[in-house]
């Protein structure tokens, strides 16, 4: 493949790819993300490839392996296009029958279909599964069309056209304006307006003109895995977003800081970056525009604190991941003291969409203060577990019952934990709460990176609070005394309560400790660490 040298070159390539593809042709798709692999999808994919290579079918049927389609609970899935017939919990033993009956003859195999637990009826087509019903899969729908090892799948979907627009038709100020109007807020947790960060990094003085772009893929919140899924399934959407950001703020060096616990995401991202270089989307003189930018992968060392921007940057510089005070924001002085713009994986993936379809379109999705969609990982004690992408403002009830299919074994919902270790538990009584940045904060929790862990009546709320505090005592970097020592004391008290040695005055002491830790800690970890305890006291403190 020769490097593309212009927007017209990309257009020609896309036309060529499209002319070679027939949407009516049979295509077998299986998802081999981490969730699928945990259930044996690798063997299924191998068996499909073997069967399709046999006489009679060879060369007549397409086969694609993709990232996770979202409904992790029914993995491994095999989907047969163009009808989009979906089979779930497929084993290698099922594959010959799928090929000989469904692929060759178009016959549906009933026993492999998804059964709607509410009605007991079998569902043939993937899009009719209720789990997908209320979703708005802006970022995640493309995953089922894209083999992450094949950049041409992404190009076929119109990939890198937003980049062309930014390189050839838009001034960086216009890009900033578009991102500003879209109302995009950071998906990493705090919900900071994205354009403000970009604007600050663009306008900040740099001693040698160097600026950095970072993609934060240190998805440390336990219970959240949308960033892993995006990097595994559609890494080019993130890369394209980063290049657009780089062009806008005037950066030529980018990093993706990704968790070491996500080996498949690291692999797929590495392949995607290499292909982007080969095609001329990264490196020198991108698409003949004269703009240079490249991206390096940096693997994290397994420290939760490194999701915090200053700790992440310290770690990128080869130092231990301790945060520093942010009197001067990292947009002004970040990595190597240069202006640095850091956004989360999901935020970056939103950028090409906004550029392509416009801020007006984007800002119509969501609520007043929270625009667009948000990906949540709906997990815990809920029937349908998986990644859910919904417009901001959907209620918790719709999430848990309409999409999640309710609580298993007819048990009662007790609480929903959002926001990871910085968030809190929202009680069943607030089930009609619309989910957006501001409403969750008002309720004493937070959006965080989008983990949504459902708990039933069997789960002990004090145990949950203790779980998070224990997590945070292990992950506190130890720099600030209130966080390091205060959390230890909170853990002692909570352990006493869960083991039957609680005293009435413990609650008051926990609240007092919580307030001090919040006020006196330097970074976001300490500043939000008491949230799980304080929100539990707020909602579940009954004598």
């Amino acid at each position, binding site marked *: 493949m020769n490097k593309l040298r212009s927007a017209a070159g990309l257009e020609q390539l896309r036309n060529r790819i499209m002319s070679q593809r027939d949407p009516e042709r049979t295509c077998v798709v299986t998802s081999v993300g981490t969730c699928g692999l945990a259930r044996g999808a690798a063997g299924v994919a191998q068996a499909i490839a073997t069967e399709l290579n046999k006489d009679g079918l060879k060369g007549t049927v397409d086969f694609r392996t993709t990232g996770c389609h979202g409904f992790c609970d029914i993995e491994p899935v095999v989907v047969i296009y163009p009808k989009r017939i979906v089979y779930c919990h497929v084993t290698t033993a099922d594959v010959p029958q799928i090929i000989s009956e469904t692929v060759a003859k178009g016959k549906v195999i009933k026993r492999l279909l998804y059964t709607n637990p509410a009605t007991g009826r079998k569902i043939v087509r993937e899009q009719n599964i209720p789990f997908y019903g209320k979703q708005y899969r802006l970022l995640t729908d493309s995953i089922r069309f894209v083999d992450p090892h094949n950049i041409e799948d992404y190009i076929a979907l119109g990939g890198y056209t937003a980049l062309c627009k930014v390189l050839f038709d838009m001034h960086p100020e216009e890009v900033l304006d578009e991102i500003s109007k879209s109302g995009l807020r950071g998906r990493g947790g705090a919900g900071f307006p994205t354009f403000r960060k970009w604007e600050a990094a663009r306008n900040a003085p740099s001693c040698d003109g160097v600026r950095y772009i970072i993609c934060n893929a240190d998805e440390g919140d*336990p*219970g959240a895995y949308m960033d892993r899924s995006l990097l595994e399934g559609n890494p080019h959407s993130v890369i394209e977003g980063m290049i657009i950001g780089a062009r806008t703020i005037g950066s030529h060096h980018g990093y993706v800081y990704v968790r070491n616990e996500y080996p498949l995401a690291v692999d797929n991202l590495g392949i995607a970056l290499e292909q982007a270089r080969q095609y001329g989307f990264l490196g020198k003189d991108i698409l003949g525009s004269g703009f240079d930018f490249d991206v390096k992968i940096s693997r*994290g*060392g397994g420290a939760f604190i490194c999701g915090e921007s200053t700790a992440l940057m310290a770690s990128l510089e080869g130092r231990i991941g301790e945060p520093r005070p942010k009197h001067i924001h990292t947009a002004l002085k970040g990595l190597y003291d240069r202006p640095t713009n850091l956004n989360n994986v999901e935020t970056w993936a939103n950028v090409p969409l906004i550029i392509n379809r416009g801020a007006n379109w984007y800002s119509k999705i969501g609520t007043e203060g929270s625009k667009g969609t948000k990906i949540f990982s709906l997990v815990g004690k809920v029937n349908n577990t998986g990644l859910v992408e919904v417009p901001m403002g959907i209620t918790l009830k719709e999430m848990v019952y309409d999409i999640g299919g309710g609580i298993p074994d007819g048990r009662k919902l007790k609480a929903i934990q959002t926001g990871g270790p910085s968030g809190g538990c929202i009680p069943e009584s607030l089930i009609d709460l619309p989910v957006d940045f501001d409403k969750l904060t008002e309720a004493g929790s937070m959006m965080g990176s989008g983990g949504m862990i459902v708990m039933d009546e069997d789960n002990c709320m004090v145990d949950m609070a203790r*779980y998070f505090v224990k997590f945070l005592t292990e992950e506190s970097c130890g720099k600030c005394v209130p966080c390091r020592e205060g959390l230890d004391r909170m853990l002692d008290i909570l352990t006493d309560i869960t083991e039957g040695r609680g005293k009435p005055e413990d609650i008051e002491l926990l609240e007092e400790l919580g307030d001090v830790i919040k006020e006196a800690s330097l970074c976001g970890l300490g500043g939000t660490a008491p949230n799980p305890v304080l929100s539990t006291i707020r909602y579940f403190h009954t004598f």
Partner: protein
Amino acid sequence: MKKVDVIVDQYGCNRDSLISILQDIQAGYHYLPEEVIRQVARRLDLPLIQVYGVATFFKAFSLKPRGKHLVHVCLGTACHVRGAPAVLDEVKRQLGVETGDTTKDMKFTLETVNCLGACALGPIVVVDGNYQGKMRPGKVKGVFKQYRGAIEGKQA
């Protein structure tokens, strides 16, 4: 120790690449031996305390030799609410070691991890990169079945 020099050179002897260098070294040795830490500090011209600091700050690094097979039990929130602590207890019982320790025959090292991002399938146990979803204490023995000879070897 030649291997260490090769890795350091691959990163252009760049101090900023300290974490990546240690990760690559650990991938070969399964842990970071003391002489390796000293050698890296020498090669990068960094104070030993900085290399030691990084090696002990990040969970990914181990200063103790680790076993042939790495067993990770996920204790993420989703796994926790679905009973990961009981699964961990059973893994400890089966292997006869505490979290962070290695069996005497150096076959298995047991570690916990905060989240592997396969939350929908929790609780998760990973042996040498092979994910086992929806674990229950009763299924733990089965997971180690293929390694059973090794476990019995330890008990003998």
